[in-house]
Protein backbone atom coordinates (compact mmCIF):
# COMPACT_ATOMS: atom_id res chain seq x y z
CA UNK A 1 0.00 0.00 0.00
CA UNK A 2 2.81 2.31 0.95
CA UNK A 3 4.74 1.61 -2.25
CA UNK A 4 1.61 2.19 -4.32
CA UNK A 5 1.06 5.53 -2.62
CA UNK A 6 4.63 6.55 -3.25
CA UNK A 7 4.38 5.60 -6.92
CA UNK A 8 1.30 7.70 -7.69
CA UNK A 9 2.51 10.57 -5.52
CA UNK A 10 5.83 10.47 -7.31
CA UNK A 11 4.01 10.78 -10.63
CA UNK A 12 2.29 13.99 -9.54
CA UNK A 13 5.44 15.34 -7.92
CA UNK A 14 7.30 15.06 -11.21
CA UNK A 15 4.47 15.80 -13.66
CA UNK A 16 2.43 18.25 -11.57
CA UNK A 17 -1.36 18.22 -11.29
CA UNK A 18 -2.08 18.74 -14.97
CA UNK A 19 -5.11 17.10 -16.57
CA UNK A 20 -4.00 14.41 -19.01
CA UNK A 21 -5.04 10.89 -19.89
CA UNK A 22 -1.96 9.56 -18.08
CA UNK A 23 -2.75 11.53 -14.91
CA UNK A 24 -6.34 10.35 -15.09
CA UNK A 25 -5.22 6.72 -15.42
CA UNK A 26 -2.97 7.08 -12.36
CA UNK A 27 -5.86 8.50 -10.30
CA UNK A 28 -8.26 5.93 -11.68
CA UNK A 29 -6.05 2.95 -10.79
CA UNK A 30 -5.43 4.28 -7.30
CA UNK A 31 -8.95 5.39 -6.43
CA UNK A 32 -11.68 3.77 -8.49
CA UNK A 33 -12.27 0.77 -6.25
CA UNK A 34 -12.13 2.59 -2.88
CA UNK A 35 -14.29 5.39 -4.34
CA UNK A 36 -16.79 2.91 -5.74
CA UNK A 37 -17.05 1.29 -2.34
CA UNK A 38 -17.40 4.71 -0.67
CA UNK A 39 -20.18 5.69 -3.12
CA UNK A 40 -21.97 2.37 -2.60
CA UNK A 41 -22.14 3.21 1.10
CA UNK A 42 -24.42 6.10 0.17
CA UNK A 43 -26.07 5.05 -3.06
CA UNK A 44 -26.33 1.44 -4.07
CA UNK A 45 -27.79 2.00 -7.53
CA UNK A 46 -25.99 3.87 -10.32
CA UNK A 47 -22.78 3.82 -8.26
CA UNK A 48 -20.67 3.13 -11.35
CA UNK A 49 -22.22 6.05 -13.24
CA UNK A 50 -21.61 8.30 -10.27
CA UNK A 51 -18.02 7.08 -10.05
CA UNK A 52 -17.43 8.11 -13.67
CA UNK A 53 -19.02 11.52 -13.06
CA UNK A 54 -16.88 12.06 -9.96
CA UNK A 55 -13.73 10.99 -11.77
CA UNK A 56 -14.52 13.40 -14.60
CA UNK A 57 -15.05 16.19 -12.06
CA UNK A 58 -11.70 15.37 -10.44
CA UNK A 59 -10.02 15.34 -13.84
CA UNK A 60 -11.54 18.65 -14.93
CA UNK A 61 -10.54 20.33 -11.67
CA UNK A 62 -7.13 18.71 -11.32
CA UNK A 63 -5.22 21.90 -12.14
CA UNK A 64 -7.15 23.69 -9.35
CA UNK A 65 -5.90 21.25 -6.72
CA UNK A 66 -3.44 22.82 -4.30
CA UNK A 67 -0.56 20.35 -3.73
CA UNK A 68 -0.15 21.38 -0.10
CA UNK A 69 -3.59 19.90 0.71
CA UNK A 70 -4.25 16.20 1.10
CA UNK A 71 -5.30 14.66 -2.22
CA UNK A 72 -7.19 11.95 -0.34
CA UNK A 73 -9.30 14.52 1.48
CA UNK A 74 -9.91 16.47 -1.72
CA UNK A 75 -11.09 13.51 -3.78
CA UNK A 76 -13.35 12.10 -1.05
CA UNK A 77 -14.85 15.57 -0.44
CA UNK A 78 -15.71 15.81 -4.16
CA UNK A 79 -17.19 12.30 -4.08
CA UNK A 80 -19.33 12.93 -1.00
CA UNK A 81 -20.60 16.30 -2.23
CA UNK A 82 -21.44 14.84 -5.63
CA UNK A 83 -23.42 12.01 -4.03
CA UNK A 84 -25.28 14.41 -1.72
CA UNK A 85 -26.20 16.62 -4.70
CA UNK A 86 -27.35 13.56 -6.63
CA UNK A 87 -29.62 12.50 -3.77
CA UNK A 88 -30.94 16.05 -3.26
CA UNK A 89 -31.74 16.49 -6.96
CA UNK A 90 -33.75 13.29 -6.95
CA UNK A 91 -35.25 14.09 -3.56
CA UNK A 92 -34.02 10.78 -2.22
CA UNK A 93 -33.27 9.87 1.35
CA UNK A 94 -29.78 10.91 2.44
CA UNK A 95 -29.42 7.72 4.42
CA UNK A 96 -31.02 4.99 2.35
CA UNK A 97 -31.34 1.75 4.23
CA UNK A 98 -30.18 -0.74 1.70
CA UNK A 99 -29.04 -4.26 2.10
CA UNK A 100 -25.33 -4.79 1.58
CA UNK A 101 -23.97 -7.47 -0.66
CA UNK A 102 -24.10 -10.79 1.18
CA UNK A 103 -20.90 -12.23 2.52
CA UNK A 104 -21.32 -15.31 0.29
CA UNK A 105 -21.23 -13.15 -2.80
CA UNK A 106 -18.19 -11.27 -1.60
CA UNK A 107 -16.21 -14.43 -0.93
CA UNK A 108 -17.25 -15.93 -4.25
CA UNK A 109 -14.68 -13.53 -5.75
CA UNK A 110 -11.82 -14.88 -3.66
CA UNK A 111 -9.90 -17.81 -5.14
CA UNK A 112 -8.00 -18.80 -2.01
CA UNK A 113 -10.04 -21.37 0.00
CA UNK A 114 -7.82 -21.06 3.10
CA UNK A 115 -8.24 -17.31 3.06
CA UNK A 116 -12.00 -17.73 2.69
CA UNK A 117 -12.23 -20.07 5.70
CA UNK A 118 -10.11 -17.87 7.94
CA UNK A 119 -11.95 -14.67 7.20
CA UNK A 120 -15.51 -15.65 6.43
CA UNK A 121 -16.78 -15.80 9.98
CA UNK A 122 -14.94 -12.69 11.10
CA UNK A 123 -16.13 -10.77 8.07
CA UNK A 124 -19.71 -11.89 8.66
CA UNK A 125 -19.59 -10.36 12.13
CA UNK A 126 -18.03 -7.14 10.86
CA UNK A 127 -20.64 -7.03 8.11
CA UNK A 128 -23.48 -7.35 10.62
CA UNK A 129 -21.96 -4.64 12.82
CA UNK A 130 -21.48 -2.23 9.90
CA UNK A 131 -24.99 -2.87 8.59
CA UNK A 132 -26.37 -1.76 11.92
CA UNK A 133 -24.63 1.62 11.51
CA UNK A 134 -26.08 4.44 9.45
CA UNK A 135 -24.54 5.73 6.23
CA UNK A 136 -22.43 8.52 7.81
CA UNK A 137 -20.93 6.20 10.39
CA UNK A 138 -20.09 3.60 7.76
CA UNK A 139 -18.29 6.28 5.76
CA UNK A 140 -16.37 7.48 8.80
CA UNK A 141 -15.36 3.88 9.58
CA UNK A 142 -14.18 3.38 6.00
CA UNK A 143 -12.16 6.60 5.90
CA UNK A 144 -10.55 5.84 9.24
CA UNK A 145 -9.89 2.11 9.04
CA UNK A 146 -9.25 1.68 5.33
CA UNK A 147 -7.79 5.01 4.28
CA UNK A 148 -6.19 5.61 7.69
CA UNK A 149 -7.26 9.24 7.68
CA UNK A 150 -6.86 11.60 10.60
CA UNK A 151 -9.95 12.80 12.48
CA UNK A 152 -9.28 16.34 11.20
CA UNK A 153 -9.44 15.18 7.56
CA UNK A 154 -12.54 13.06 8.12
CA UNK A 155 -14.19 16.07 9.78
CA UNK A 156 -13.44 18.15 6.67
CA UNK A 157 -14.96 15.57 4.33
CA UNK A 158 -18.03 14.94 6.46
CA UNK A 159 -18.43 18.66 7.32
CA UNK A 160 -18.69 18.01 11.02
CA UNK A 161 -16.50 19.06 13.99
CA UNK A 162 -13.43 16.95 14.81
CA UNK A 163 -14.85 16.17 18.25
CA UNK A 164 -17.95 14.68 16.62
CA UNK A 165 -15.75 12.45 14.46
CA UNK A 166 -13.95 11.22 17.59
CA UNK A 167 -17.18 10.44 19.42
CA UNK A 168 -18.63 8.71 16.35
CA UNK A 169 -15.47 6.62 15.98
CA UNK A 170 -15.83 5.60 19.61
CA UNK A 171 -19.44 4.56 18.91
CA UNK A 172 -18.34 2.61 15.80
CA UNK A 173 -15.62 0.79 17.77
CA UNK A 174 -18.05 -0.09 20.55
CA UNK A 175 -20.64 -1.42 18.08
CA UNK A 176 -18.10 -3.56 16.24
CA UNK A 177 -16.44 -4.78 19.45
CA UNK A 178 -19.82 -5.81 20.82
CA UNK A 179 -20.56 -7.77 17.66
CA UNK A 180 -17.09 -9.35 17.64
CA UNK A 181 -17.23 -10.48 21.25
CA UNK A 182 -19.00 -13.67 20.19
CA UNK A 183 -16.34 -14.26 17.50
CA UNK A 184 -13.49 -13.70 19.96
CA UNK A 185 -15.05 -16.11 22.47
CA UNK A 186 -15.40 -18.77 19.78
Amino acid sequence: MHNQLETWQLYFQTQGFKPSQEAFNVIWMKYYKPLLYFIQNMIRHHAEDLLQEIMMKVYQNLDRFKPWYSFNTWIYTIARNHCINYLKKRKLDLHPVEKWETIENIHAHSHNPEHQLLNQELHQHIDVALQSLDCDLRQIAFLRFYEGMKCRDIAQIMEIPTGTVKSRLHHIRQTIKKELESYDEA
Partner: protein
Amino acid sequence: MKLNKWLRRYYKDQIESLQTLDPPLVGQRSHAQIPSKKRVVQWDDILGIIVTAAYILQFLIPTTWFSWGRCLSIFTLGF
Protein backbone atom coordinates in the same frame (compact mmCIF):
# COMPACT_ATOMS: atom_id res chain seq x y z
CA MET B 1 -4.96 -2.56 17.38
CA LYS B 2 -6.45 -5.95 16.60
CA LEU B 3 -9.74 -4.33 15.64
CA ASN B 4 -8.01 -1.89 13.29
CA LYS B 5 -6.20 -4.79 11.62
CA TRP B 6 -9.39 -6.81 11.21
CA LEU B 7 -11.29 -3.89 9.79
CA ARG B 8 -8.53 -3.03 7.40
CA ARG B 9 -8.45 -6.61 6.15
CA TYR B 10 -12.25 -6.61 5.86
CA TYR B 11 -12.27 -3.43 3.75
CA LYS B 12 -9.37 -4.65 1.65
CA ASP B 13 -11.24 -7.86 0.82
CA GLN B 14 -14.43 -5.96 0.07
CA ILE B 15 -12.62 -3.56 -2.25
CA GLU B 16 -10.65 -6.31 -3.98
CA SER B 17 -13.90 -8.13 -4.68
CA LEU B 18 -15.27 -5.17 -6.65
CA GLN B 19 -15.52 -5.42 -10.39
CA THR B 20 -12.49 -4.27 -12.37
CA LEU B 21 -13.22 -1.27 -14.55
CA ASP B 22 -11.02 0.24 -17.22
CA PRO B 23 -10.42 3.99 -17.14
CA PRO B 24 -12.47 5.88 -19.74
CA LEU B 25 -10.81 8.08 -22.34
CA VAL B 26 -11.03 11.49 -20.74
CA GLY B 27 -9.59 13.58 -23.55
CA GLN B 28 -12.47 12.80 -25.90
CA ARG B 29 -15.17 12.83 -23.23
CA SER B 30 -14.10 16.09 -21.67
CA HIS B 31 -14.11 17.87 -25.02
CA ALA B 32 -17.52 16.45 -25.77
CA GLN B 33 -18.84 17.56 -22.40
CA ILE B 34 -17.51 21.11 -22.53
CA PRO B 35 -18.51 22.73 -25.81
CA SER B 36 -16.56 25.74 -26.99
CA LYS B 37 -18.08 29.02 -25.81
CA LYS B 38 -16.85 30.83 -28.96
CA ARG B 39 -19.72 31.04 -31.49
CA VAL B 40 -18.72 31.65 -35.09
CA VAL B 41 -21.40 33.51 -37.10
CA GLN B 42 -21.83 31.85 -40.47
CA TRP B 43 -22.95 33.61 -43.69
CA ASP B 44 -26.15 31.51 -43.80
CA ASP B 45 -27.06 32.84 -40.33
CA ILE B 46 -26.97 36.40 -41.70
CA LEU B 47 -28.90 35.40 -44.82
CA GLY B 48 -31.52 33.74 -42.64
CA ILE B 49 -31.96 36.95 -40.63
CA ILE B 50 -32.31 39.02 -43.85
CA VAL B 51 -34.94 36.63 -45.26
CA THR B 52 -36.93 36.64 -42.04
CA ALA B 53 -36.71 40.43 -41.72
CA ALA B 54 -37.81 40.90 -45.37
CA TYR B 55 -40.72 38.54 -44.94
CA ILE B 56 -41.95 40.34 -41.82
CA LEU B 57 -41.38 43.78 -43.39
CA GLN B 58 -43.68 43.10 -46.35
CA PHE B 59 -46.61 42.79 -43.92
CA LEU B 60 -45.65 45.65 -41.64
CA ILE B 61 -44.57 48.40 -44.00
CA PRO B 62 -46.96 49.51 -46.78
CA THR B 63 -46.32 51.27 -50.12
CA THR B 64 -42.75 51.61 -51.32
CA TRP B 65 -41.14 49.62 -48.53
CA PHE B 66 -43.65 46.85 -49.16
CA SER B 67 -42.30 46.21 -52.62
CA TRP B 68 -38.69 46.44 -51.43
CA GLY B 69 -39.39 43.88 -48.72
CA ARG B 70 -41.15 41.59 -51.18
CA CYS B 71 -38.38 41.92 -53.74
CA LEU B 72 -35.76 41.17 -51.14
CA SER B 73 -37.60 38.12 -49.86
CA ILE B 74 -38.16 36.76 -53.40
CA PHE B 75 -34.52 37.44 -54.23
CA THR B 76 -33.15 35.68 -51.19
CA LEU B 77 -35.58 32.78 -51.42
CA GLY B 78 -34.48 32.33 -55.00
CA PHE B 79 -30.99 31.35 -53.83
